[in-house]
């Protein structure tokens, strides 16, 4: 029913009780809204939830962490400003999404990545991952992961497994390979039937210790190392409803089951629990896969999305050339999101609308 214009009334005498005529406006119902929760608030929550991981990154990787994350954030903001100006639209930096993309991209890089990797990655993330589609809310793929995959493929050496190790570093952790790299090498050796090299075995033993994996005293990308920090932040995010819990639940559940099966079948020397806290699965499950724009909108769809991410992560870890697969898992599931939305249309209360003859 269309709203009519207010009917024109002849001038009515204003009663004495009202000193000034208030300005009454007309608008459609509902006339109230929950002002405590805005899109910007959601982005702020993500940044707050990432704070423990950023803090751990700075604690473990020192100055490198500050430079990477800072460079990514600044470049993302600059890229968004530039592309928005090119599209002749009002500046939207205030909504916080570019900052979030920058922080996530920064945390997903290794400490040693050169400055141009951070800059090009950020520009690709914002430009190719978001602006080309029309800006916030219009993109299909997770912008941070688009940027990450872009630099992964373009600068393979700078981002390969060897980039994480620096044997002469003052930082203890970076003298060792990342736990997942060790696991992959070992799995390869076992599969090929060759004898296990002595110091690889030693590395495996140290990589197998669960507590350092959990707290974060291991090598890896900047944000992925401390499972504790990520869990704290991730749970905060889910409780605040700024991320949907169905996605991490599905991702961690699927990864746990699949990794457990793989471990039992001898395909990986790590147990399911190691797979959960090692690598960037937690980071991906709570902060990357939960990007609302690129994940389904229905609760069941979100859960299946999470399941898919978890499955792909483990499959890529086991069977691909990469030791870690979160970025590709998320991008693959982003592509499936529209299908998941269609497949999980909920049944209305009272059943679907009956067909009219």
């Amino acid at each position: 029913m269309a709203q009519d214009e207010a009917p024109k009334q002849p001038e009515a005498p204003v009663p004495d009780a009202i000193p000034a005529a208030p300005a009454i406006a007309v608008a459609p119902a509902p006339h109230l809204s929950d002002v405590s929760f805005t899109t910007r608030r959601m982005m702020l929550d993500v940044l707050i939830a990432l704070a423990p991981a950023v803090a751990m990154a700075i604690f473990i990787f020192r100055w490198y962490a500050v430079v990477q994350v800072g460079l990514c954030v600044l470049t993302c903001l600059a890229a968004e400003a530039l592309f928005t100006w090119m599209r002749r639209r009002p500046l939207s930096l205030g909504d916080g999404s570019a900052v979030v993309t920058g922080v996530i991209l920064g945390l997903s890089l290794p400490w040693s990545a050169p400055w141009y990797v951070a800059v090009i990655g950020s520009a690709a993330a914002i430009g190719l991952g978001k602006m080309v589609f029309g800006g916030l809310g219009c993109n299909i793929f997770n912008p941070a992961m688009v940027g990450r995959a872009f630099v992964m493929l373009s600068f393979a050496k700078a981002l390969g497994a060897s980039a994480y190790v620096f044997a002469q570093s003052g930082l203890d952790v970076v003298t060792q390979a990342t736990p997942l790299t060790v696991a992959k090498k070992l799995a390869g050796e076992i599969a090929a039937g060759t004898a296990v090299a002595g110091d690889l075995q030693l590395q495996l033993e140290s990589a197998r210790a669960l507590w350092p994996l959990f707290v974060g005293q291991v090598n890896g990308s900047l944000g992925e190392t401390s499972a504790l920090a990520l869990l704290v932040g991730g749970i905060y995010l889910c409780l605040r409803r700024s991320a949907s819990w169905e996605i991490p639940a599905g991702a961690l559940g699927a990864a746990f089951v699949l990794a457990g099966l793989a471990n039992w079948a001898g395909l990986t020397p790590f147990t399911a629990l190691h797979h959960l806290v090692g690598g960037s699965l937690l980071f991906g499950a709570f902060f990357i896969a939960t990007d609302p724009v690129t994940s389904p909108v229905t609760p069941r769809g979100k859960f299946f999305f999470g399941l898919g991410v978890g499955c792909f992560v483990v499959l890529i870890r086991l069977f691909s050339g990469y030791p870690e697969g979160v970025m590709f898992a998320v991008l693959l599931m982003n592509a499936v999101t529209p299908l998941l939305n269609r497949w999980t249309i909920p049944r209305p209360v009272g059943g679907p609308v009956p067909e009219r003859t």
Partner: protein
Amino acid sequence: MTTLAKGRGTFDRGIHPPDRKHFAADAPIEVLPTPKEVRIPLLQHLGAPCQATVKPRTEVALGDVIGDTDAFVSAPVHASVSGAAGRLSVATLPNGRHVAVVPVKAAEEQPLAGQALFDDIFGGEWPTDGLDEYEPQQIVEAVRRAGLVGLGGAAFPTHVKLTPNESKPIDTLLINGCECEPYLTADYALMLEAPAPIITGALLAQRATGAQDVVICLEDNKPKAARALRKAAQGTAIRVSTLKTKYPQGGEKQLTVAVLGKEVPTGGLPLDIGAVVLNVGTAAALARAVVRGKPLTHRIVTVSGAGIREPKNLLVPIGAAYQDLADACGGLTPDAARAVAGGPGMGFALGSLEVPVTKGTSGLTILAHEEVRKAEETTCVRCGRCVDVCPLNLVPTKIALAARAGNLDVARQYHIAACMECGCCAYVCPAGIPLVQLIRLGKVMLQKAGGS
């Protein structure tokens, strides 16, 4: 004794806005001083409009029929003041419809006014025994003669609801006192001050429909009202059930789920699952219509919000102007920003207060600037909050954005016709998207395209 039927006492999803009942909850019902003129719409119910049955410049008495029709789904209208009927004119109701109105200029002397009027309508003895002497058909006819329609807001002619349908027997009669809209306290005040006619009306409705069980339902933010009703229902088999306070618990689809554990089929009625839902105000008016043979001429309206000086629950004659109600409450404050006919969840914004109160009007909510929804809209980020709160389990964002893009196939795929426009989705949307308005637009487009 609280009893819950087979339902869980609540429904899934929904929202918890602050109920803001404190503005008018403690205001005892006050009778509106008789306005100088009332303008009685000939269509203020679902169904066919009435034709005027009085000529201009005729004297009419309070309670006289001034409009009627032969159509089945309709209800007559009566004079709500004694005075002189005028020439037919037109008024625009809050929902946008232009309807014919019969103006009645109030005489200097009214037969009933003030406390006497209140006592005549709600006071006196209300029997709970011996109601079986009324035949169902008698009850239905008395209800129609009295012009009774649903006072909960939908204004569906009550006699149609009570007419038995042999293929669809009624098990349960639900008397709806939930009043889930923020600010409104009209039903609350009635339950507190006049529970007896509600009980009598419920028993009569039970007699008419042949229902086995009668349950009066209200939200748990009204404990005093629940106590008053239980006291009045002593000696009868009527149960009083308190439900979890949540918007929109008062919707009949949510009510049947919460109390009976059954879903009303989409596009159907509670009748289809053996239930009839009546508002408490309708039940009270029903008692008056059958036992005393008096028509529906007045109703309780809450005037509330931070934009009105003295929030009150008023007993008003049908056809009084909203302006008369505002004046009786001290007028609008300078920071009043929106005047809503009804509650802020589903009510219509008024462009002018010179609009007549109808049988379906439950409130006049004047919202101040700080209470009113802000209009800035940003992009949908598909967060899914609207899906998390929709009481009918729909996907509002998909429907609304498809409607905006003119994509009716997607809108149909996501069950647009099932939407009850309660406003939960738009209330929570972090991007401030006017979801309900877009869904309404989509429904109009579908109708124009010829089908749903």
